[in-house]
């Protein structure tokens, strides 16, 4: 292959061939001879104490593990330490009680069904609004909201709700563990090998060097394999510890994956907005997230969520209260957008509702309030770089013929009614606040071999988003060598340094920049035929205003990626069916490291976001999820959202590799508010919840 002239020009993805031929080995593809199977016993009640577990007589070689078998601490270390590996004090339907292990899967399943569990039930809480257990509680104060509200000429209020969303990656969670020669080997489907490493070492008490985590080819993550695999890894490790040298494998059925693994937090937001002379001068917002049974990622999801509660707007006086409360439901965790989709939905709808009351077009009203370079963020940090929203908006409004359609769709009477909607959002790139500097402290290495090939050593996980290809391109371009001479494997913690988790849209901007710097250094030190190792450490950008995480003051993010989306709908008033004739979206993610890959991220993210807005409803009642199957939890097919047009606005970021920022999560933020705005337009009403389903449409129409 010739050297790359332009980093954005796409190259064939390096895992393309092994995946398309079916040769790629996912964890479920390992031969199971000599392997034990595990099946996890889960709580059938939402809250209570396990009085007894009665096992059937187990054949030779079959055994059961529970909390008493955890070698060191019965804790899965995530952010905090409240998630148990196994528990007898169950807090949600699906909470793991123990695991039965044996060689024959069919026999194991029969035995499993004979296990009897007796509980003493306690009163569960299912509604976060009525939960007295506050996991996290934060406040943002900017300017003087009291003065703003007393000086206002209009005050608007709104309540907004968003539902659970299931990741529904095609490959369910699965993990294999083996305890051999004093070392614990765990491999499987995951986003964050070092999260598993820390958790397994903590639970087993093994020294870090005796815990080896390896990522297998991973069939999609979207955040769903950020925190959850740590839980499963600890469970299989406990079983492997007892299995005396035998490998233990757990592969979830679809139903088990839906019952047991994390979801997007449901949210309840209330807004109070003060206006003077048609401009927003103050805002008071309350952001409540339903955390589920354990804290898992809720702290960081809440931080990102409530920081974004003012959207992309310049609002001088601001008071935001964020809290995450416990319920006796499956723990909610990371999901593409990470709290952003909830508050961006709320603020975007709030903006449309204010403009409707004022009788002006919502896109114009929003544009009037866009933050610009130099303005203060909600946390009194700064938008250090140009905010390209005005240009992107003009482009998307023109592409979608927004104003003309919006006018034409007023006062429709026929069976089919059209509507058009618009949203403008950002995604702050990397960990919130000082996370990258104080918690993650990313390290990367490049190893040049004697044959002058160069291996990239990071803990970033390829899960379909193309990071192994984009990293290869970055290193090849920086070294000016053909990509064929760059080697990258799936991470193995015994071989790669901890460059942090594969989350927060940070891989390219943070880790990618580190390997670019390493490559630059290697280039300057290059010695043909010699082995060389170059290591780079994270450096906090010097322009950042220090972040005070007690008072939420300072730069929460070094920079932002931006998205503007317009969605058109056509509603069948006889059935409530919502068709999507068109979607137009513009993104600024800085330089595209690979055009095809970024387009694929944007298109895939938009489709998930539209699903979140109008299709994907996780039917949970009293902690019990009734739609556990793919025929019931509806995700989009190829026929649902065919007309998506993606364009880019490139504002290069000085601290990102070749000018790149973060991309992965951004497209999941703006689709839902845009589609809801379009539905509002079609029905000539105001809406305040997602998902908004045909049933909801019919309810509006029958009013």
């Amino acid at each position, binding site marked *: 292959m010739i050297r790359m002239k332009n980093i954005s020009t796409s190259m064939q993805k390096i895992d393309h061939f092994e995946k398309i031929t079916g040769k790629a080995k996912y964890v479920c593809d390992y031969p199971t001879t000599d392997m034990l199977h595990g099946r996890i016993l889960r709580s059938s009640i939402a809250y209570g104490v396990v009085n007894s577990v009665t096992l059937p007589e187990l054949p030779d070689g079959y055994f059961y593990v529970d909390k008493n078998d955890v070698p060191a601490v019965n804790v899965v270390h995530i952010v905090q330490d409240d998630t148990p590996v196994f528990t007898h004090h169950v807090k949600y339907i699906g909470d793991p009680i123990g695991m039965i292990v044996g060689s024959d899967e069919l026999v194991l399943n029969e035995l499993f069904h004979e296990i009897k569990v007796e509980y003493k039930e306690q009163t569960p809480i299912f509604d976060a609004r009525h939960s007295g257990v506050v996991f996290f509680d934060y406040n943002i104060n900017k300017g003087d909201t009291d003065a703003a509200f007393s000086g206002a000429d209009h005050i608007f209020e709104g309540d907004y709700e968003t539902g659970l969303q299931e990741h529904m990656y*095609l490959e369910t969670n699965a993990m294999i563990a083996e305890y051999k020669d004093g070392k614990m080997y765990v491999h499987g489907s995951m986003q964050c090998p070092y999260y598993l490493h820390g958790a397994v070492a903590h639970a087993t008490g093994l020294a870090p060097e005796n815990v080896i985590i390896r990522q297998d080819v991973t069939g999609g993550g979207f955040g769903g394999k950020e925190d959850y695999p740590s839980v499963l890894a600890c469970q299989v490790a406990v079983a492997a510890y007892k299995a005396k040298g035998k490998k233990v494998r757990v592969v979830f059925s679809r139903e088990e994956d839906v019952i047991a693994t994390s979801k997007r937090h449901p949210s309840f937001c209330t807004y109070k907005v003060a206006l003077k002379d048609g401009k927003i001068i103050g805002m008071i917002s309350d952001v409540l997230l339903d955390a589920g049974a354990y804290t898992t990622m809720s702290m960081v999801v809440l931080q990102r969520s409530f920081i974004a509660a003012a959207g992309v707007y310049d609002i001088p006086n601001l008071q935001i209260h964020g809290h995450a409360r416990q319920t006796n439901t499956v723990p909610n965790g990371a999901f593409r957008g990470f709290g952003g989709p909830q508050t961006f939905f709320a603020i975007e709808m709030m903006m449309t509702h204010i403009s409707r009351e004022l009788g002006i077009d919502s896109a114009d009203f929003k544009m009037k309030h866009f933050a610009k370079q130099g303005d203060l963020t909600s946390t009194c940090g700064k938008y250090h770089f140009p905010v390209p929203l005005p240009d992107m908006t003009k482009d998307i409004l023109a592409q979608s013929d927004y104003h003309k359609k919006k006018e034409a769709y007023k006062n429709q009477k026929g069976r089919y009614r059209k509507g058009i909607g618009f949203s403008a959002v950002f995604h702050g790139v990397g960990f919130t606040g000082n996370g990258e500097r104080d918690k993650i402290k990313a390290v990367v290495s490049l190893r040049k071999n004697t044959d002058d090939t160069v291996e990239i050593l990071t803990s970033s996980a390829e899960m379909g988003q193309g990071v192994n290809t984009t990293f290869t391109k970055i290193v090849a371009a920086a070294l000016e060598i053909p990509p064929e001479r760059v080697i990258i494997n799936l991470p193995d913690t015994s071989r790669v340094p901890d460059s942090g988790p594969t989350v927060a849209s940070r891989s390219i901007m943070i880790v990618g920049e580190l390997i670019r710097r390493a490559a630059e250094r290697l280039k300057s030190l290059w010695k043909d035929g010699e082995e060389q190792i170059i290591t780079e450490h994270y450096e906090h950008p010097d322009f950042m205003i220090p972040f005070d995480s007690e008072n939420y003051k300072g730069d929460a993010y070094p920079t932002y990626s931006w998205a503007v989306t317009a969605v058109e709908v056509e509603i069948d008033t006889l059935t409530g069916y919502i068709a999507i004739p068109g979607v137009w979206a513009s993104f600024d993610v800085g330089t595209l490291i690979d055009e095809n890959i970024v387009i694929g991220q944007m298109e895939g993210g938009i489709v998930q976001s539209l699903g979140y807005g109008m299709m994907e409803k996780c039917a949970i009642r009293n902690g019990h999820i009734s739609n556990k199957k793919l025929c019931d939890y509806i995700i989009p097919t190829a026929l649902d959202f065919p007309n998506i047009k993606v364009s880019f606005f490139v504002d290069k970021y000085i601290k990102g590799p070749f000018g790149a920022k973060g991309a992965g999560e951004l497209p999941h933020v703006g689709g839902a508010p845009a589609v809801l705005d379009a539905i509002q337009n079609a029905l000539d009403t105001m809406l305040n919840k997602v998902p908004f389903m045909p049933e909801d449409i019919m309810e509006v129409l029958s009013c």
Partner: protein
Amino acid sequence: MLNTPVKFILNGEKTEYTGNPSHRLLDVLRSDYSLTGAKCGCKEGECGACSVLIDGKLINSCLVSMGSLSGSSVVTIEGYSKTARFDTLEKAYASVSAVQCGFCIPGMILASECLLSNNPNPTEYEIREGISGNLCRCTGYNAIVKAIGIAADTKNTAPACDCKHNHEAERTPLLSLQEALELRKTTNLIPYAGGTDLMVSESSLEKKFLYIGNIPELKQITEDEKHIRFGAACTFTQVINNKLSPEILKEACRGIAAPAIRNAGTIGGNIANGSAKADSALIFMVTDSKLLIKSADSERIIPIRDFYLGDKKLNINPNELIVEILMPKHGLDNYYYKKVGARNALSIARTSFAGILDIQDGIIKNCAVAFGAVIDTIIRFDHIDKKLIGKNTDEAKALKAEYFAMYDEAVVPRRGRVSVQYRKNVCMNLLKDFLEVNGI
């Protein structure tokens, strides 16, 4: 009659399977043959990650019982990836980076092959249709659709994938209908045609099946003076592609699930599973079709309406099989059909409606309406519809209010995946629209 050993062709090689005939092809491919390209995403025929080609047709291998494979040719991604046609698709997918996590991709490639071998120059809609049973959570499908378009534009002279030409499988002699009926009399084997419903159940492994999917008498579509006669084991794809099938039935069959399910599922199965959501059964109901039901010693013809006894009870004896569905030949052209699902493919009816209005010389000769997915069986109230029969349009208009009032009372939905009120609203809206578009 368990059809073992099962002799079939796998990726061009003869093979014999001697294990449990009720096991799923997917599990057998992955464990017995170490062919792990077909993935398990759901075990219910919903995701398509386990797609294979069976006799050139796209099939979900999780819904295939091994015993049904006798004499078939199975191609998996491992076999297909050695063909020239694969190379074209592979390069096309590469050129737009259509592969992300990859878990759906082997199935997606086989769906692409099946689509292009049947339709070398598909429109974008046809491409989306062709892969509509293959869920992908990463790409949003655009890149995959583009890739298939590129592959279609690449001049490709390689013959469609058929590894069968190398070996003609030793086909276990097919059962005749009479033999199958004798087995119905003497055993309690469960009739198995397409497997798309039976194999969804977790307990399918313990069941013993009577394979009737290949019985020639059950696979024909013929006509007599008054009827189109559909063999009960005709697949939905067969019905769609047959020129005798009326448009109302084709439209309903085209809306069923996705290609792989339509290639396997049968109309007889759709009726015999008793579901109120059965899309083709709704059409047989609204057209007042009849069922030819046989046992080894007798036969009877009953209106399909008399087949459903309510509460999942069916008018069929353990020694019988549905042999044919007899659909009236005439008066079906002016129809109204609407299935309300949760998405545009792979959807289970939330509510469905079919209506037929046959107006000749200004007089309503026939008016028939049926609702699906409202209660536990498909509903059809011909005593209400009779109100309009024999009337002209103006007379019908005068009776409209009464007609609606009767339906308003008669249609009492149950809560399912959607609310009672939603179902009711949709039913009444569609009923009104049905008459309005006919000028009533």
